[in-house]
């Protein structure tokens, strides 16, 4: 267990100043700023209804806009980047001879990728709350400063977001580990995601992990915290995690 924690800390050191870190910081900030601009200059379309909690509209707007495309794309890119730094800089031959098991190397990286997305999501929430405060000052008619944020809904959205992305992340992580090329890893993810977005009406779409981020917001306000989609996503996370480890243990380095 100690060596697994050490491997996880090592992943944290690697992420410092990496492209993944800058992309997460700048990408998230960029999205928030873009939303802020839209809401700032928007007309009455974002105004809450008389009987509506002013934060509902605001939170769902942010989540619906990001979940449909940006969230899956973010997970795909992060998985690819975290694996790519090892491929790109020829690190496997080093990591395989430092007395840490391949299982621990793989799982620490996968868990780190997941935690990385979770931290990026926390950053997204913080930025979203700051942007709400700014909007509340300049557009008081949105009513964002009249009531406390709906933290229950926010937590539910955040929780379901992270659960829904887990299965897709584990599959995408395996693909990224398997193929040296960043383009291949990215391509597989984008194709999976695009196919799912075209097949949203298909009755079995829920069984494809790439579709989970596209589906989890349906009726989210009344849905349970952990529904069948989230359970399925976590199931995929473990299945693809285990398959990835087994494959990684067989990996031979090129001659």
């Amino acid at each position, binding site marked *: 267990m*100690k*060596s697994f924690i*050490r*491997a996880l*800390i*090592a992943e944290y*050191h*690697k992420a*410092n*100043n*990496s*492209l993944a870190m800058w992309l997460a910081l700048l990408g998230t900030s960029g999205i928030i700023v873009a939303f802020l601009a839209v809401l700032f200059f928007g007309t009455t379309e974002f105004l809450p209804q008389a009987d509506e909690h002013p934060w509902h509209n605001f939170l769902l707007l942010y989540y619906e806009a990001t979940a449909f495309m940006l969230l899956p794309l973010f997970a795909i890119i992060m998985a690819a980047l975290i694996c790519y*730094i090892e491929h790109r*800089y*020829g*690190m496997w*031959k*080093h*990591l*395989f*001879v*430092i*007395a*840490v*098991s*391949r299982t621990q190397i793989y799982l620490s990286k996968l868990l780190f990728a997941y935690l990385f997305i979770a931290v990026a999501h926390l950053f997204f929430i913080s930025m979203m709350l700051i942007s709400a405060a700014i909007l509340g000052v300049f557009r008081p008619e949105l009513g964002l400063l009249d009531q406390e944020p709906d933290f229950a809904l926010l937590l539910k959205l955040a929780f379901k977001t992270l659960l829904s992305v887990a299965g897709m992340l584990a599959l995408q992580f395996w693909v990224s580990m398997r193929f040296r090329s960043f383009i291949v890893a990215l391509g597989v993810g984008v194709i999976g995601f695009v196919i799912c977005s075209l097949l949203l009406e298909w009755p079995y779409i829920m069984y494809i992990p790439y579709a989970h981020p596209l589906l989890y917001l349906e009726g989210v306000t009344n849905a349970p915290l952990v529904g069948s989609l989230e359970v399925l996503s976590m199931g995929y996370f473990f299945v693809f995690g285990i398959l990835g480890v087994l494959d990684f243990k067989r990996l*031979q*380095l090129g*001659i």
Partner: protein
Amino acid sequence: MIQTRNLSFFYRKKKGIHQLNLHVPRGSCYGLLGQNGAGKTTTMKLLLGLLKADEGEVYIADQLMDSRQLHVYQRLGALIEDPPLYPYLTAYENLEITCTYRAIASPRIGEVMEMVGLSDVAQQRVGTFSTGMKQRLGMALSLLPDPELLILDEPVNGLDPEGIVTVRELIRTLHQEGKTILLSSHLLYEVEQNCDHVGILQKGRLLYSGSMDKLRQQQALPVGVWISTLQPAQARQLLSDKGYRVEKKENRLFVYLEDEAASNRVIDLLRNADIDIREVVRPKVRLEDLYLFFTQKDTAEQ
């Protein structure tokens, strides 16, 4: 320290490594010599478990090498091909990552930086480093666990003359400290300078493996001396008249002798005849000659 038994590896259905029986004694500095493509890196990857052998076994410190035997890796440091470094991090941060994985205390970072002569640039980003500096930092990575066994693939590749001298001295120091070192090179001079044992690899086959001294003894050279003089024709005539067999090669005379002590008699003869002697050199077996002998013999036999 390292022992392989009939180690074979197939590459695209062809045999890449042929029944390798390598023996690297504990405390030795073993040079694996071979041209590019001879199989040096593949051999090292097989030894480290980075590639799975199709036949045979590898033993390190008397333990069967298997990628699952993690404790074996605790005793070794390795640098294979290009140094594994994250260019967006500093030299210190790169070493810190390996320290974290291996549970090594951070003061060791300063020690290995000092050993490879990179203390001044510890906080510099690796992306700004020259090839030679990266190679030295790669060596520092392999030295972090203070290993008993060091496996270095072409350690002076891409280094400038100053870097070559630093790495050569470092290898010599580590060897003197009692570490076992296996290094591969296509540079005969480097192996001759650093190693007391040598393996000659050609097309995946080990043509020779053993101590450098034994290798030299195997190649018995004719007993004699090289003599440089300003009067080579006179000297040759004199020695021939006295019954010595003399050959002229590149402005020098090679005088065949019955035994090495006879060289004094030859020198006396020449001095008494007022022949000016510039230089007397005993023939030395060069690794280059031995390498060519083995590889050319093998090519001829095939």
